[in-house]
């Protein structure tokens, strides 16, 4: 056990020496890997923004069912109860005829001609309204169909909903394209980072080739020879993730106020998202970078172990 600890200490010391003696090469490697990790983080952030935008639009969709002015309130409440029982319906809001008229007046407060026309009419020309919110945007056509086939169809003057599906679909398409570009960009960066790590370790191994040969001749095991290089690559991974964190959070803090102003319908907090998912995001990236580095260094050193 003590021997193992001594070996572990020596392996770590050799790794640290290797890392420190090739300082600038290590810095370049870390910077390139951090760029790759930042691209991945940007992609994650972009996905969160797109999700938020889609949710925002989905929340804005509702359907209004207008009743004839002569339909009385109990009948409208009956229709409300009927709609509320439908699986596709999330909520139904009742707007009385008087409220509808008041809302109309408020909406057209600056348009005197419309207001005058309303005044000239005897009584309230507007009927009650039910504002329906479905669970999913796709449910609205189904709800319309159900109303049309229901016994209440003759009471309804009109039903309509602001169809944002086209906008949502366009956003989804743009999001898909952005995602695909982001993934491609990430893959390119990760590939470049892997090649650079591979090359850095090859250079480190090349400069140590004499030492490796001597280590082999005096009886060092392959594990003892390989381990410092593998641990050195783990140092790269740790520094990369540290640098990525140091850059990511100030960036998010800088962008956050703009996002807050833009997404008024649903609060979007990217900093909170990254903080809440810190372990998963950083853990996955650290795991990935370490795995890539270990594989790269193990391959790079293989040819020098054949002494």
């Amino acid at each position: 056990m003590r021997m193992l600890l001594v070996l572990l200490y020596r392996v770590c010391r050799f790794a640290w020496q290797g890392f420190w003696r090739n300082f600038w090469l290590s810095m370049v490697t870390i910077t390139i890997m951090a760029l790759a990790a930042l691209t991945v983080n940007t992609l994650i952030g972009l996905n969160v923004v797109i999700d938020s935008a889609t949710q925002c639009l989905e929340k804005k969709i509702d359907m209004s069912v207008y009743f004839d002015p002569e339909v009385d309130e109990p009948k409208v409440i009956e229709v409300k109860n009927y709609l509320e029982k439908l699986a596709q319906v999330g909520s139904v809001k009742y707007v009385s005829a008087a409220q509808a008229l008041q809302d109309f007046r408020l909406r057209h407060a600056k348009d005197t001609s419309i207001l005058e026309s309303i005044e000239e009419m005897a009584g309230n020309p507007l009927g009650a309204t039910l504002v329906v919110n479905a669970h999913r945007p796709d449910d609205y056509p189904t709800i319309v169909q159900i109303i049309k086939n229901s016994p209440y169809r003759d009471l309804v003057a009109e039903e309509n909903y602001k169809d944002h599906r086209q906008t949502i679909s366009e956003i989804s398409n743009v999001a898909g394209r952005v995602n695909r570009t982001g993934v491609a960009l990430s893959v390119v960066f990760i590939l470049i980072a892997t090649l650079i790590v591979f090359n850095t370790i090859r250079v480190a191994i090349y400069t140590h080739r004499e030492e490796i040969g001597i280590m082999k001749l005096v009886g060092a095991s392959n594990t003892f020879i390989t381990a410092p290089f593998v641990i050195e690559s783990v140092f790269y991974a740790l520094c990369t993730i540290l640098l990525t964190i140091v850059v990511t959070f100030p960036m998010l803090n800088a962008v956050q106020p703009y996002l807050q102003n833009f997404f008024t319908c649903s609060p979007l907090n990217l900093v909170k998202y990254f903080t809440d998912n810190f372990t998963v995001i950083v853990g996955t990236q650290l795991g990935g970078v370490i795995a890539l580095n270990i594989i790269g260094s193990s391959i790079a050193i293989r040819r020098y172990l054949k002494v």
Partner: protein
Amino acid sequence: MITFRNVSKIFYPERTIALANVTFEVQPGEFVSVVGKSGTGKTTIVKILIAETRASEGRVIVGGWDITRIRRSEIPYLRRQIGVVFQDYKLLQKKTVFENVAFALQVSGAGPSRIRRIVPEVLKIVGLSDKHDRFPVHLSGGEQQRVAIARALAHGPKILVADEPTGNLDALNSQEIVALLQKINQIGTTVLFVSHDQTLVNQIHRRVIVLEEGALTSDQPVGRYRLS
């Protein structure tokens, strides 16, 4: 201690025969010179002994251990039992004399206290106690070879293989190195001295194995090396 039984080594794809059906035995405590011109297979014997290369045919046994088909993972353990010295010293230039010797112990997991005890001991044997903090570049060729011998002795090997250890040295330094190898032999270590230096080999008056074109042509208990 060392047994070579009908050992041949053929290098492919040129099918160069480095060793052809070589058979000899070395007893514990012997001092054996392996001689021959360049390219006669002397270094191939060393390489087979430290498992740097494998015999194409025959069997090689070291200290009762059949290393003919040694597993890769067992090679480090074999090398810790055989001290090896090369013509080009193979010292780490950025390490001091002490660190170079300690390095052999470090890689095998020896503890710091053992290193502090053994390194001065072996440096004393090779006469470099007072130069433990020098770097190889500040030492003469003979001194560098002494460091290499000290490093080879660090594990306390039963066999010391010296492959042309005087090849880069002048006559005086060569004499000193041979004297040192003899001294090491006297304290019980089996020494295999590989050389093409006729004068040096002939003044040792110990067993001489002669190789010619990969074949063993002479093996005399108190032999001489005659140029053919």
